[in-house]
């Protein structure tokens, strides 16, 4: 059951991702990104990582993609197809990506090809919460500094110069 769910979600994720990186319409790409991220969230769910899936949907779909769309608007991104969106390097890029995929895939198959996952539904929100506040206190605190710094940095960059 979970396997089938995972396979479906994974297929959707792959297809959507391919469209994200190949679409000539930039806004379409952003929207397909939503689909891809959602599908990945589905994968998380299939692996019984419900908390992560939830966060994925909240943060990615709810925040990041919205930000991206805003940014597209602000940069006056055209909605019509833009043939120059993908540069002439794309065959080369594809070759590299394919090589990388081949390498990694082979390695992964050799290493984990016989392993089975048996996800247990174990209230992962609580597990994650406990882990964060019991074990991963330091990274969590540092992460807060990171968010603050990124926020202030983004604000500072967005401010107009005083002379303007």
């Amino acid at each position, binding site marked *: 059951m979970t396997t089938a769910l995972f396979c479906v979600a994974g297929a959707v994720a792959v297809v959507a991702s391919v469209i994200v990186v190949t679409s000539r319409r930039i806004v379409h790409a952003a929207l397909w990104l939503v689909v891809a991220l959602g599908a990945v969230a589905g994968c998380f769910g299939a692996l019984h990582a419900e908390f992560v899936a939830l966060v994925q949907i909240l943060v990615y779909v709810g925040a990041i993609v919205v930000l991206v769309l805003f940014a597209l608007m602000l940069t006056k991104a055209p909605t019509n197809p833009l043939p120059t969106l993908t*540069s002439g*390097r794309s065959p*080369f*890029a594809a070759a*590299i990506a394919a*090589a*990388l995929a081949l*390498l990694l895939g082979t390695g992964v198959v050799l290493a984990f090809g016989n392993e089975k996952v048996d996800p247990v539904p174990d209230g992962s929100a609580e597990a994650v919460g406990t882990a964060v506040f019991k074990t991963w206190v330091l990274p969590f605190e540092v992460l807060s500094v990171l968010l603050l710094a990124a926020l202030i940095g983004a604000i500072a960059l967005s401010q107009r110069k005083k002379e303007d």
Partner: protein
Amino acid sequence: MIATAWRVLGVGFSLLVVLTAGLLAGAEPGRSSFLNSSIDGLTLGFAVRTDDLTVLLLAVVGVVATCVQVYSLGYLHERPASYHALVALFTAAMVTVVVADSLFLLLIGWEVMGACSYLLIGHYWERRDARSGAVKAFLMTRLGDVGFLFGIFVLGVGAGTFRISELDPAELSSGVLTTGTLLLLVGVVGKSAQVPLQTWLPDAMPGPSPVSALIHAATMVAAGVFLIARLYDLFAASATTLTVLAIVASVTMLFAALCAMAAVEVKRVLAWSTVSQLAIMFAGLSLGTSDGRHAALFHLVTHAAFKGLLFLCAGVLLHQIGSAAFVVLRRYTRRGRLRKALPVTFATMTVGLAALAGVPGFAGFFSKDTVVEAAWHHAQDGSGLGWVVLVSVCLTAALTAFYCLRLWLWVFFRTPALAGGIGAFEDDDPMADLDEPDTSKLRDAPWVMLSPLVLLAIASVVLGYADGVHLNWVVGLVTTVLVLLGALPAYSLWSRGADPRPVVLEREFGVDPLYHRLFAVPARWLARLTVAGDRDVIGAYVRATGRTGTLVSQGFRRMQTGNVQTYLTAAVVGVVAIAVLAGVIGS
């Protein structure tokens, strides 16, 4: 002012040498060493000794040096300070050689003499022939000196000492002995201008004549003879070396005499004759007998007198006429004026030539006969070497007589105009031969120059009797006949106004051009090759490294396109490449 000081010093020093010789005469032989330092059991230092040989040579050096210094007072007008200083330095160096008991001290004197010789030959450095002659003289003797130095190593290391008086042939293995003496012989050959290093001495003649008299006739070139005499025990113990020496001497004496027969300049004739006479001394030494040594030293002494005299006479000709070339001189001679204008020179030169030619009664006759006699005795003892020496000395005696007479006649006696073959004329212009030079102001040299001539002329006669007359009448008769045999053709040719000079003799057997082609030209090529190699090979690599650096640097600048996606691509490619490489290396 400075020049005067040096003049006084020069003469004074020479007199001091004479005085020392006088004081040491008959004194007990002595030795002492000083400034020693030792390396690995070998003592490196200086030592002197006095014995009969020392005294003899000191006397010769002192007397000839004094004569030359005094003579130079009148002879030399250009740059006298350096000249007198160098002559004094030369005398000191020769004295060092003579008194040295340490091979290194000897070497110092030996090479300083060479340096002085070089500097004095180049005294007239404005002249091209003087410059090249000086360089040639130094280089050829230097080449010999390298062998000499190696010979010192072989003997010194072999014997464990560099003291001459401690070198004992009995303690040396025959290999060491032969190698060492042969190497020393190389140095001797170079210094004494023997075959095959003979060509520098004739070319050294552009130097001032008194220098030729002192260095290139009486003393320095004879230092080789002295050296072998000094180390006679060692040389006599090595049959190989003696054989080589005999062959070298025989070849040289004939070779040089033949060259002298065709030379057309007084000093050049004398130079070749010096080579030839030195070879006679070596021939005496090569016999390996004490008779031979005695004969050689005797000839050394007489030769110093008469050859010094002859060079000084040639100097007078140069000083008074400006040239010693036959073609120039004979214009003055045509009416016999030279004889009358320069009576003292004529007389003393005649004495000198007679001594050189071995005319009975003169010193050269006696000394040469001693050599012949020693060789004869040695030959009778069954030595082939003795025969070789004997025959070649006898032949040389005849040839010597020939060129002496030729020189005497062509310089001082009337010769017909336009006599002689092609090339016998000044600038190859036969008409110049007809010019009548102004001889009205021609007169003999000042007495300051003439008095040494007279002194040496007397010596050239008297020295023959200094050793006591014990003449072997047979030998004397034979050599006298040989002298006559040599003199007659010279006279007959002269009387016919002919001066045939075979090309091979005139070119001195082509040795000089051959050496030039064999050594100087390749050296020059190699030099250019080395420079080109440095520039185009080693330097090219260095430059190429620099240029590669620059090019690569430019390349990196160009790769910096400013396109961030190129950067990203390069990075990802880098990751893949490292992964693949590591995988390949790992598996």
